[in-house]
């Protein structure tokens, strides 16, 4: 065990001076993810679109300022800054020079003021512009609110005419959908629990960021030693293969955990800064951390197996890339797919991949299925032991030494 500690010391010393890896694995997520949110926020709010409102209807033209104020308020809610120009004739506007065009034709007010009239407004947006799309939504929200007010007035007028009492809100929304939540066990769930379950998907996806540095480090730690011609002397030092492997696995574990912590902080900062709803509970963070630990412990021996059987760095990288892609496919799908709801054969195939259980561990816990989450954790631990035994067996000095760089 002393040998393993010495190898761990060497690996960590070496790693602490491998600035590229440290920047890529630790610093980049810590700065990059919050930076991305900040940058996106700054860019979104600093973009200004041109919005042209053409009011040909004379009555509406008299109240155009009120319309502009209402549209402006909606735009602010959507976080879009716009330069709004008012026109009284459509021919004054060059459509190519405006991002959003709102056209209120003649007769608009006349149709609105009839008890059963239907007024028409035309909104045209510049294609391929996200800001224009947001502006369109803001404009439609404005007109939707206006429509609701007009319906209320009409209902009140009709009820007066018919001398009956009608609640306009009931007429507008005859069916009220009342939302509730429940867990897989059938027990009711709170809104916070529902939000945490939703946020758990992001945590599941974030597991991918743990796999990658573990793969990169382990590949370099095994095949890189061959390439840098340091392995042969190390193998002849008085240290067992088991201790040597243990030292390297421990180092990759520490790097994986550092990366996970950095990614975790980065992701939380990203959502905080971008203002997106992202609710976490202390226990889900603990479960996520446990999943990360098990994932690192499982991935590292898998890469040892691949790296020690690879004849070159490139071959090791190619084979490891396959592992990374499998992890990416599984963790990316967790954003959209419920892994636990897949049909039998597909579910069985996925359950053979250790990565699946790390995601399911978080997923099941977030849904309140603690026993299922524990089973996933146990399976991960089983995979870890199995893969470590396979890695130790495949860690052949002959293969390591005979490699030609």
């Amino acid at each position, binding site marked *: 065990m*002393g040998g393993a500690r010495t190898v761990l010391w*060497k690996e960590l010393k070496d790693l602490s001076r491998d600035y590229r890896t440290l920047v890529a694995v630790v610093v980049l997520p810590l700065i990059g993810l919050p930076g991305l949110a900040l940058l996106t926020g700054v860019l979104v709010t600093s973009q200004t679109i041109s919005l042209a409102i053409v009011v040909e209807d004379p009555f509406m033209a008299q109240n155009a300022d009120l319309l502009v104020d209402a549209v402006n308020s909606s735009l602010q809610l959507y976080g879009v800054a716009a330069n709004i120009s008012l026109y009284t004739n459509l021919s004054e506007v060059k459509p190519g020079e405006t991002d959003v065009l709102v056209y209120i034709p003649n007769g608009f007010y006349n149709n609105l003021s009839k008890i059963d009239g239907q007024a028409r407004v035309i909104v045209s947006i510049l294609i391929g512009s996200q800001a224009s799309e947001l502006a369109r939504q803001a404009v439609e929200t404005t007109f939707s609110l206006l429509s609701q007010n007009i319906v209320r007035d009409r209902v009140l007028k009709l009820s007066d005419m018919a001398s009956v009492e009608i609640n306009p809100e009931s007429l507008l929304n005859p069916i009220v959908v009342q939302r509730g939540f429940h867990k897989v066990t059938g027990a009711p769930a709170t809104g916070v629990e529902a939000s945490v379950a939703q946020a758990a998907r992001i945590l599941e996806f974030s597991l991918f960021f743990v796999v990658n540095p573990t793969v990169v480090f382990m590949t370099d730690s095994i095949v890189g030693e061959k390439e840098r011609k*340091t392995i042969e002397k190390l193998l002849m030092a*008085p240290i*067992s293969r088991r201790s040597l492997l243990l030292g390297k696995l421990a180092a990759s574990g520490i790097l994986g955990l550092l990366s996970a912590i950095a990614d975790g902080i980065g992701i939380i900062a990203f959502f905080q800064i971008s203002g997106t709803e992202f609710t976490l509970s202390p226990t889900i963070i603990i479960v996520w951390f446990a999943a990360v630990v098990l994932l690192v412990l499982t991935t590292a021996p898998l890469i040892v197996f691949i790296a020690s059987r690879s004849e070159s760095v490139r071959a090791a990288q190619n084979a490891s890339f396959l592992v990374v892609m499998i992890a990416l496919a599984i963790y990316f799908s967790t954003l959209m797919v419920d892994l636990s709801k897949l049909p039998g054969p597909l579910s069985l195939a996925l359950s053979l991949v250790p990565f699946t259980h790390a995601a399911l561990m978080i997923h099941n816990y977030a849904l309140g299925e603690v026993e299922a989450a524990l089973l996933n954790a146990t399976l991960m631990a089983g995979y870890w032991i199995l893969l470590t035994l396979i890695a130790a067996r495949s860690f052949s000095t002959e293969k390591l030494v005979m490699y030609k760089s």
Partner: protein
Amino acid sequence: MHVVNANDVWKTIKRKTILRGASLTVGEGQVYVLAGPNGAGKTTLIRILMGLISMDSGRIEVLGCKPGDPDWDKVKLDIGYLPEDASPYDRLTGWENLRFYAELYSQGDPSKVEEYLENAAAISGLTREELSRRAGGYSRGMKRRLLIAATLMHNPRLVVMDEPTSGLDVFAAYRVKRTIRSMAGKGYTFLITTHDMSEAQELATHIGFIESGRIIFQGTVEDALSAYSAESLEEAFVRAVGDGRS
């Protein structure tokens, strides 16, 4: 007593037979130089002797133990091995490289770590300032001296060096040879490979000629010169190979 005893060793790698019944014997206190051209099987034989790769057939004993046996990890404590083209850890300083090996060879005894570090610093001939720098910035000669120091720091009973001066300039090679001669004078047993016959003549007390995976001669340097009526080992080797081929 024989420190190394290899008998009728055969090895085929990727359908190419590298060793064809190679046999050699290294006695205590000898500087045994295994000399032969590139591709003769020197490195493969050394790797088999060190237990790094397996042999197809043959018998081997190093310091009384068969490589790969359960006691082999203990035997490694008495061996200093310098592979061909070996490199130190570039991102570690000279001291850190030495400390790494000192920790491994001391087996957790802190007093031994300091002793080995002192030994290594003296053997390397590198200054404290040089040892405090990262090994990645060293010249090839400095790297080799650092590794030789790491190889000899624990006073091994057997020192195995594969082409120790390969790729070094004249001054660096001279320093390495001087270190080997100095340690040999203290009674260390050396097994060294080289393709350079003049280097073999400079260093060897005993010589083994290897060609196409066979040891075609082994004995003292004087035996080799007299057996082939040669004035130098180079001449003796050419005649030995000629004899073998004829």
